[in-house]
């Protein structure tokens, strides 16, 4: 037994047990602090009406009930556009937007990071600068562009701009820079085309990066992205907008609203857990012996 522990500890260099313990305790403390909103939201969704407006407010629920869930479904049972349509809208926008964004951003990042192209520094600087400009100021030009393209009031007005958001390009480029040139060169010598190098060597190596990018992009689009500005038709609106109209129903709908907020959170959490548990160590230099 003791030997097993020793063996396990030997795998990691430069680590001591007491320091590990202290750090884990610190992590646990901070983690509790960060988890407050989760606990609070779950509590809110389960609270009966009288407890919800209890003063002073409580974080934990005393008499949990599922009434709020039924309330929410009752509201949607009578709504003009069925909830399944809102759900479809949200899923459609979030999945297509995320998928397209990850692929396009990676494809654009690869040449910026690894190929010799004239003016790639200028291009990349522009990408970074675009992250720093206030979205409020660019909103009017953006609206005009979408109108000119004839995409107003369609799914595409949300999805296509999401493809081209500069955050992903920046992230992917930074990760691809870490790949040693030697791997790419040796692949070239072995006769691989640029496409092959990209799909079989570069993308598997930066797997943690695009899994992370999926989280960012999905979270952004799940809330509906820019749909509030560009989409008017009720049947094209995402769930976020539908839930917002519930909240507008006043204080009696607080219970339904907190359930709605909880439901809105479940899918991103699922995506998050899926992607984070797949972020495994990829050896960017495996297969290299110099």
């Amino acid at each position, binding site marked *: 037994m003791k030997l097993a522990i020793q063996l396990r500890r030997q795998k*990691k*260099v*430069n*680590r001591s047990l007491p320091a*590990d313990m202290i*750090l884990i305790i*610190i*992590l646990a403390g*901070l*983690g509790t*602090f*960060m*988890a*407050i*909103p*989760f606990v*609070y*939201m779950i509590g809110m969704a389960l609270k009966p009406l009288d407890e919800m407006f209890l*003063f*002073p407010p409580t974080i934990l629920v005393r008499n949990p009930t599922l009434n709020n869930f039924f309330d929410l479904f009752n509201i949607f049972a009578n709504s003009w556009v069925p909830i399944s349509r809102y759900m479809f809208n949200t899923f459609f926008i979030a999945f297509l937007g995320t998928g397209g964004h990850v692929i396009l951003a990676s494809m654009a990042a690869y040449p910026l990071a690894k190929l010799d192209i004239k003016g790639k520094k200028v291009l990349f600087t522009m990408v*970074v*600068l675009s*992250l*720093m*400009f*206030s979205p*409020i*100021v660019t909103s*009017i*030009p953006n609206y005009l562009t979408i109108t000119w393209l004839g995409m107003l009031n369609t799914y595409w007005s949300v999805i296509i701009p999401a493809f081209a958001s500069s955050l992903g390009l*920046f*992230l992917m480029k*930074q*990760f691809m820079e*870490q790949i040693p040139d030697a791997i790419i060169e040796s692949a070239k010598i072995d006769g691989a085309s640029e496409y092959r190098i990209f799909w079989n060597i570069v993308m598997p*190596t930066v*797997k*943690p*990066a695009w*899994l*992370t990018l999926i989280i*960012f992009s999905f*979270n952004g689009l799940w*809330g509906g992205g820019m749909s509030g500005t560009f989409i008017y038709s009720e049947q094209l609106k995402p769930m976020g907008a539908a839930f917002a109209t519930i909240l507008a129903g006043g204080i009696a709908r607080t219970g339904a609203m907190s359930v709605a*907020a909880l439901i*809105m*959170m479940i899918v*991103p*959490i699922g995506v*998050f*857990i899926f992607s*984070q*548990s797949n*972020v*495994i*160590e*990829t*050896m*960017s*230099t495996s297969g290299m012996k110099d």
Partner: protein
Amino acid sequence: MAFVLSFTYYNILEPPKWIGWDNYANLFIKDEIFLIAVKNTILFAVITGPLSYIACFLLAWLINELSPKVRAVVTLLFYAPSLSGNAYLIWKIAFSGDSFGYINAFLLKWGFILKPVQWLTDPKYMLAVLMLVQLWLSLGTAFLAFIAGLQSMDRTLIEAGAIDGIKNRWQELWFITLPSMRPQLMFGAVMQITGSFAVADIATQLVGFPSPQYAAHTIVNHLIDYGTLRFEMGYACAIATVLFIIMLGANQLVQKLLKKVGD
């Protein structure tokens, strides 16, 4: 486009009218509130920016040592504030100004204060409270990028370092981990700069808009004020340009600092 508009008087309905540097002159000479906003924003960014950047990195580094399953759960916990939309409104209850807000109730009970503190309306505390909430909220993009970066790091470097005489984890962090994560550090820095200079939303939600005595007024708040409430787009563009230049300066500075890491 925004840069050109910043030299015009543009109210969205009429075509823009060229007025040269007038917007900028007004901004710095006549507009006292703008100067308050600049002061607040810089104060905010200088304190929360580096703090949350370092916190992001250290936490990512510590979490990275856990086993994959545990890591996913812990990461989720720390990312929760960014994931849960407007859950930061819970802080509104916590810092509520009556004696029932969590913080006030706690402090009263233990005798630290004799009467409730107006956390969200007293200009003295407002900015500090906002900074705390922002710190709590800011473990987002950069944090996840760091975790992914640590995962794609070359393990053999650490072993080689141990043979070459690196004695503890702090040396390992400084001489091996940090230098090999430079691209991610750069990404995190840019995200942190854009995030901490563009704070506006939490201020609006927690202390109202405009905040009492403009004590928590930031540049972006000012921008929203002129751009979407008063429809003076030209002026708003001038504000955006100033903000952009400040961010650019911060970016240059951070790049210089990052070059020194691990030397």
